[in-house]
Each structure stands twice: as structure tokens, then as C-alpha cells.
């Protein structure tokens, strides 16, 4: 059996996990520096980099300990690490640590694309899932619809031409004077609001699968400036409904065109209650499997990186020790 240590440091989470080749998560540890970034309304790269360098060692030690492995001679076969996309200063910490662990233990290491990692998350919760899958990958950095024919076999059907969905949530939350990150706050407020209170445009009505959230954010700003008396909950509900409508409309179009066995949600925005509900309804309507990730699998974690690493190691072999970080690595350019 192959056992992999995964390491993830692409944004504000410092994570390590041990996963075996049946995609069983033996241990998974996540530390976040999010509290240091809240006051700034977004992740401050230099603060994130500083936090990673202080946290990576203890997090890896905890993941190995929780897996019952010896820190000095762990029974692992490889180290997988996110080498992009992400914040360069953050990526470099995980990448440097991963190379060092691999050299010290005498095992290969492999650089993994963070987005491909997210695509492996459903496998960690259901190893025997049926392919193909249509996956809606939505986070603070990315929004895309991906056709997965099998593990590691993916095709990006469409993606955001401007802001990511999570980014729009953060920007609108900041405009409304809510905390950072904006997703959970807006989602919570929206429960008590009326989705029809604000008239917001539905973006991207074209036939392709591309997405756009920048105009929606601007529309929220205009509408609230014009009607200053709209309740915060109503703004949140209207915005959330507009985001979900666009995502679900594109997902529906993809489901009508591609014959798939299931639909999956991935990425930080996959924690959004309205989106989970909508994707669940779509799956029921099309009578296909629905893979909604647990909270831990929505956030950036190292188990998904280890899983993708297992696949990449078998498919492409180990990475060279001179591998550098790729802050703008696109999913279409994998491997």
C-alpha cells in the first residue's frame, strides 16, 4: 500500500495530511492564519508567509503523530505538496518543507496543482464514486465548471472571466461593512432576508459555461446607494440568490449537454447553504449522484493534495528537486 504525506500552504491555511492509496484519510490537520487577516479585509500575503513558516513544522508533526507514524522514520512512500496556483510567498514555504522531508526520509516528492486537489476531494469521501462527474469548483480564487471523466482526467468547460464567486462575496461583504471572509456572514444574513428585495442583473446569459461576478458586485453597490433603506438581510439574500442563479443556470446547461453519473461541489464556496440546496435539487431532477463535501473538504486541506499527489505520482512520476512554485498554474495546463 502506498501512503502519502500531503502538504498545503497556498493561501492562509497551513495543512498536512496522511492519505493511503484507497483514498482513506488517515489524518488531516489544518491551521489557519485567518484571524491575522480579518482586520485587513483580505489575506495579506506577507502575514500569510510569516505564519506558514512558523506553523508548518508543528502541523506536519501533528499529522504524522495522529497517523501513528514516527516523525524520523515514518512509513510513508512520498510527499505531495501544492506547488501552485496560490500566493508565491506561501507556496514556497510548503514546497521547501516538502522537498526537505522527502530528502530526509529518502522518498520521492511530487508537486500538485491546488485546483486538481479540490477535484480529488469527492474521492476522499466516497472512494467508489461513479464517473463522469460535473464539478462546480467555487472558491475565493476560482470559479469553474469542470467535466471529470475520471480521476486526473478533467476538462474545464467554463470559468469566471473576472472575479471568483468567493471574491465577490468578500467584496460585497466589505461594502456592507460585514466581516471577512464574507461568505459565511452573507450566507447567515441571507437566511432572514427576501431574495426579491433588490433587482440585480443575471450575468452571463450566453450559451457558453463561462461565469462573471464583477458586474453583480457593482450592481449591489449601485442598488444600495440608490435605496439606502434596504435591510442588510435583504441585500444579502438578493445577492446570494443572484450568485446561485448564475452558477446553477450554467450547471444545468452543462447537465443538459453532458451525460454524467454525478455532480459535485468543491472549494470554499461549496459551504454555502443556498448553493448546496440548489445543487442537490439539480442532482435529484437529473436523477444522478450528488457529492456535497463536508465542511473540512470545502476549505483548503492537505488530504486532497495527498490524493491528487497519489494520482500524479503514478501517472507522471516524481517531481525534480529544482521544482519551483507556479503561482498562476492553470488547471488546463495540468500535468
Amino acid at each position, binding site marked *: 500500500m502506498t501512503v502519502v504525506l500531503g502538504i498545503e500552504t497556498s493561501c492562509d491555511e497551513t495543512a498536512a495530511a496522511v492519505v493511503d492509496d484507497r483514498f482513506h484519510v488517515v489524518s488531516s490537520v489544518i491551521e489557519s492564519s485567518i484571524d491575522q487577516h480579518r482586520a*485587513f479585509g483580505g489575506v*495579506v500575503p506577507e502575514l500569510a*508567509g510569516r505564519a*506558514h513558516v512558523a506553523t508548518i513544522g508543528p502541523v506536519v508533526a501533528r499529522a504524522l503523530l495522529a497517523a501513528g507514524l514516527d516523525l524520523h522514520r515514518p512509513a510513508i512512500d512520498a510527499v505531495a505538496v501544492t506547488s501552485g496556483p496560490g500566493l508565491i510567498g506561501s507556496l514556497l514555504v510548503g514546497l*521547501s518543507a516538502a522537498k526537505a522531508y522527502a530528502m530526509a526520509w*529518502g522518498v520521492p516528492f511530487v508537486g500538485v496543482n491546488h485546483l486538481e486537489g479540490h477535484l480529488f476531494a469527492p474521492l476522499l469521501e466516497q472512494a467508489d464514486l461513479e464517473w463522469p462527474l460535473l464539478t462546480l469548483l467555487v472558491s475565493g480564487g476560482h470559479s469553474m465548471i469542470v467535466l471529470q471523466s475520471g480521476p486526473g482526467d478533467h476538462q474545464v468547460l467554463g470559468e469566471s472571466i473576472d472575479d471568483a464567486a468567493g471574491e465577490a462575496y468578500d467584496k460585497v461583504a466589505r461594502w456592507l461593512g460585514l466581516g471577512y471572509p464574507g461568505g459565511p456572514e452573507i450566507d447567515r444574513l441571507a437566511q432572514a432576508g427576501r431574495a426579491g428585495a433588490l433587482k440585480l442583473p443575471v450575468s452571463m446569459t450566453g450559451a457558453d459555461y463561462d461565469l462573471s461576478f464583477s458586474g453583480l458586485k457593482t450592481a449591489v453597490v449601485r442598488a444600495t446607494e440608490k435605496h439606502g433603506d434596504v435591510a442588510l438581510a435583504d441585500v444579502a439574500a438578493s445577492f446570494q440568490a443572484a450568485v446561485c442563479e448564475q452558477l446553477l443556470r450554467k450547471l444545468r446547461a452543462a447537465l443538459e449537454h453532458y451525460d454524467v453519473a454525478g455532480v459535485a461541489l468543491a472549494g470554499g464556496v461549496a459551504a454555502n447553504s443556498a448553493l448546496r440546496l440548489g445543487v442537490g435539487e439539480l442532482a435529484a431532477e437529473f436523477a444522478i449522484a450528488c457529492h456535497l463535501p463536508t465542511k473540512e473538504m470545502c476549505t483548503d486541506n492537505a488530504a486532497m493534495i495527498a490524493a491528487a499527489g497519489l494520482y500524479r505520482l503514478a501517472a507522471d512520476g516524481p517531481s525534480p528537486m529544482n521544482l519551483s512554485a507556479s503561482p498562476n498554474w492553470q488547471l488546463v495546463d495540468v500535468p
Partner: protein
Amino acid sequence: MNIIAIETATAACAVGVRTSGGVEVTRVVDEHRRHTESLMPGVAGLLEECGLTARDIERVVVDRGPGLFTGLRVGIATASSLAQALGCGIVGVTSLELLAHGARDAGVRGTLVSAVDGRRGEVFVQTFRLGDSVEPVGPPEVARPRNVVIEWATNGAPVTFSGDGVGRYCSDFDAVPNGTVFAQSVPSVHAALALGGSRGPGDTISPLYLREADAVANFSTRERSP
């Protein structure tokens, strides 16, 4: 004791190995800020040259700065993870003391100011007395090169300047009447190996930044906008 040293505080990336048998090899493996790409191949190459494997390493020495923030993080993450995984001791040294030791090893005596390029028009500096040993005169600080130059021009005492911060602002430092520039841009890896062997190892090594993160420094002046 088999020791390896990792040096990534400046634009250069350097590594060193000293074996228990007394063989020492040091090498600058890159000079253009490609720390991530060049560090581990450099370490692997030197170990092989010395007939060692990673498992033979008994101590890791790392330059904890001050210097390039990303370079420091690459060096410290690498060094700490190596030491952690091998279960061996780790020693942190500073770029400024390595420059002082490097100058002393080359015969420089008297007052020496180490200056590492801190970017944004600043240098990280520290003053040392070089004699039988290397003694720090003050703490490491952030300074404008011009202010360092004015201070020593006014002081009038003989002084030697060294480090890539001096190289970057050489026309300023050249103008100090009693000043001498000792050309040395990379903190001495030989000195790192020597200090790493003589000092007791610590538990954790953190970068010596000497400067707050950007956003923290600018927060009071930040505007909030949609």
C-alpha cells in the same frame, strides 16, 4: 559531527558541508534569487561530493537573516524540516554576524559595519569589533544607507563596511572619509559551519525580519472601498 549550512538571506543561495572527518565544501549555487530551485539540488550535490547521505547529517545551520523575506523563509523552512525529520539539532545564525566573521577570517580588524540590502532604500546593519573574536557593538537595525554614511563620516573613526547593502549603495559608502569597503556580498558559509559546530542547538528557528509586514505598517492609512 557532520554539519550542513544553508544560506539564503541575500540574492545568492549558498550551501556548505563539513564532515566529521574534517572535509569542508562550500558553494554559491545561485546568485539570482532562485533559492527554491537551487537550494535542494545544491544540498544534494554537496552531500554526494562529501560521500554523505541526508541521514548522516548531525546538525543543520541556517542563516535566519535579516535579509530577503522570501529567501529567509525558503532557507528556514528547508533547514527546520530537515532537522525535524532527521531528529538532529539546528542552529540559527545571523547574516550580519556571518559577514563580520567572513571579514575577520579574511584579515580585517577593528570596527566593521555589516550591511545587508533590505530593499526599499534601506539596509539592515550591525556594528562589530573584530579582534581575537567577533563582538557585536550594537543590535541589528534597519537604516537608510545615507544615515549610516553620515553617522560614520561624522564619527571619523576608521571603519570597514561589508555586505550586499554596501555593494548596492557603494557610491554612498565610498564617500566615508575613514571608511574602507570590504567586498563581500554573500554571508560566509564557512563561518556558519564553524559557528554551527560550536554553539548549542535550539528548538525552533524563526526569521529575523526586523520589519513589520507591509499591511500592518500601512493599515492606519488604508482606505476601505468596494
